[in-house]
C-alpha cells in the first residue's frame, strides 16, 4: 500500500542531518522498529539516500552496477544528477580504456564525451583493434572487457586451400573478411587470447560466431568437440555441441551415420534417446549471426597466460560444409 508521504515536501540537500518525522517512515505495511525506522528490506533507501552528503551519493552509486545506476536515474529525479554523473560512469570503465583505444582505428568513440555516453558507446559499438584483426567492446551489465578474435586471427586448418575454405567479405560482419567453409572432412578451428587482455576476477565464456548457409551439410548428425583452457595448463574439459542450427534441435535421439564412400550417403542406426542440453545448439545473436558456446574460463587476473578455445570435428570423417565463420567471441558470463 503506497502512501503519498512525499507530496508537497521540498527537499533541501544540506550537509546537516535533518530530523526525520516518524510519519515519513510509514510507507509500507511493514514492521516499524521502535526508533521510527523500517526493519524490512530497504524500502526507505531512496528517501534517506537523498540526505547523504553530496558526493557520497555518487560514491554509493558507483559501487553498484551500470544497470542499477540507470535504474536509479530514471526512478527518481533526485538521483538523476548523481546517477548520470561522470563520477559514477567513469568508475564503471576499465582503467585501461585510453591505452586500448590508442591502438584502435579512427572510429573509436571520443574519450571527451560524457562518461555515460562514452560507456554506452563502447558497449554498443565494438572498436576494431590489432590492425582490424580483433574487436573490443564493454559488457553493458558489468563494464568488463569483451573481445572478438576474427577468423583471420584464428588457426583454421586447411583455411589456405581454396577448395576447402574461401575468404570472403560480408557487409554484416564487423571484420573485413570471414571464412566460408566450402567443404572439409577435418574441421579444426583454434583461437587464442592473451589473458592479460581480460578483466580480472571474471568468469568468461567463449563462443564461435558463425552463420549456417542454406547449403550447410554434414553437421546434422555429427557433433563437434569444443573446449576452452589455458595453454600449458590442465587438460580442458571437452564438451560436444551441434553446429547445425535446425536439424540438431529437432532430433531427440542421435542418428548414427555409417560412413560410406560418397558423402551424404548414410544408413541409419538409432541410438538411445538422450537429454537435450540447450547449450549444445547454436543460438541466434542480436547481430543476426549464430553462436555456440565453446566453454568457460575464470580469469583471475595478474597471471600471464594464453587462453585457447577450440572447435573440432575430426573424428567422424564425413564431409561437411556451408558454414561461415566470423570470429570467436570472449565475453563475461552474464549473471541471471
Amino acid at each position, binding site marked *: 500500500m503506497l502512501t503519498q508521504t512525499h507530496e508537497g515536501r521540498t527537499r533541501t540537500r544540506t550537509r546537516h542531518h535533518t530530523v526525520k518525522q516518524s510519519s515519513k517512515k510509514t*510507507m509500507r505495511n511493514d514492521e516499524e522498529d521502535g526508533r521510527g525506522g523500517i526493519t524490512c528490506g530497504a524500502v526507505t533507501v531512496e528517501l534517506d539516500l537523498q540526505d*547523504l*552528503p553530496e558526493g557520497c551519493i555518487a*560514491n554509493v552509486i558507483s559501487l553498484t552496477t551500470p544497470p542499477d545506476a*540507470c535504474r536509479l536515474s*530514471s526512478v527518481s529525479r533526485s538521483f538523476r544528477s548523481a546517477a548520470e554523473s561522470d563520477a559514477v560512469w567513469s568508475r564503471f570503465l576499465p582503467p585501461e580504456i585510453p591505452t586500448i583505444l590508442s591502438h584502435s582505428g579512427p572510429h573509436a568513440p571520443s574519450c571527451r564525451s560524457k562518461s555515460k555516453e562514452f560507456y554506452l558507446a563502447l558497449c554498443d559499438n565494438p572498436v576494431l583493434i590489432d590492425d582490424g584483426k580483433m574487436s573490443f567492446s564493454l559488457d553493458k551489465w558489468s563494464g568488463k572487457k569483451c573481445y572478438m578474435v576474427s577468423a583471420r586471427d584464428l588457426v583454421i586448418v586447411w583455411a589456405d586451400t581454396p577448395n576447402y575454405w574461401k575468404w570472403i567479405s560480408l557487409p554484416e560482419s564487423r571484420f573485413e573478411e570471414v571464412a566460408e567453409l566450402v567443404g572439409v572432412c577435418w574441421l579444426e578451428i583454434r583461437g587464442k587470447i592473451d589473458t592479460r587482455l581480460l578483466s580480472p576476477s571474471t568468469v568468461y565464456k567463449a563462443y564461435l560466431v558463425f552463420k549456417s548457409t542454406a547449403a550447410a551439410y554434414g553437421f546434422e548428425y555429427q557433433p563437434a568437440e569444443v573446449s576452452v583452457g589455458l595453454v600449458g595448463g590442465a587438460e580442458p574439459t571437452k564438451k560436444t555441441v551441434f553446429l547445425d542450427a535446425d536439424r540438431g534441435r529437432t532430433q531427440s535421439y542421435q542418428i548414427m551415420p555409417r560412413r560410406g564412400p560418397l558423402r551424404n550417403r548414410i544408413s541409419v542406426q538409432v541410438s538411445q534417446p538422450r537429454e537435450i542440453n540447450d547449450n549444445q545448439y547454436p543460438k541466434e545473436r542480436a547481430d543476426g549471426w549464430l553462436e555456440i558456446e565453446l566453454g568457460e574460463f575464470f580469469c583471475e587476473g595478474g597471471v600471464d597466460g594464453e587462453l585457447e578455445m577450440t572447435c573440432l570435428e575430426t573424428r567422424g570423417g564425413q564431409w561437411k560444409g556451408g558454414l561461415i565463420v566470423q570470429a570467436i567471441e570472449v565475453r563475461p558470463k552474464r549473471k541471471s
Partner: protein
Amino acid sequence: MSRVFKLKSSDNETFEVEEAAALLSETIKSSSSTEITVPNVKAEILGKVVEWCNKHAESEDTKDQLIKEWDAEFVSVDQHVLFKLITAADYLQIKELVDQLTQRVGDMIKAKTLKTVEMTYPTFNVEREVQEELKSLGF
C-alpha cells in the same frame, strides 16, 4: 603522553577519545582544539563512530581477518542508522569508515529488487517507465 580529545554530540554528550583513534579523522586532525562539537550527530551515532575509531586505532593490521569480520558486522545495521553513520563519518572525514559504509549501501542497492525502489516514487507507472528506459539503453 598522548592527548585526549573530547567529541561532543548534538545532544550534548561528550566522548573522550585517545589521540590515535581521534586522528583517524581528518577533521579532528586539522582542528586546532581538542574539543570538537559534531553538529547534527546524536550520541548514539557518535558513540558508534568512536567505537570504530577505537577498534581501528588498536589494531595495526587492517587486513586482519578478525578486523574484517568486525567491520562487516559493524556496517550491518538498519539503513537509517547506516545513513546517519555515513553523514557523521563524512563530516569527520574518516575515509576508511565512509568507504566501508558506502560499500554497504551499494551492496544493498545491488541486491534490491525494482519494487522497493518504485515504492518511494509517487506514480504507479514508474515500473513500466523504468523498464522502458532500461530496454532503450539495451539492458
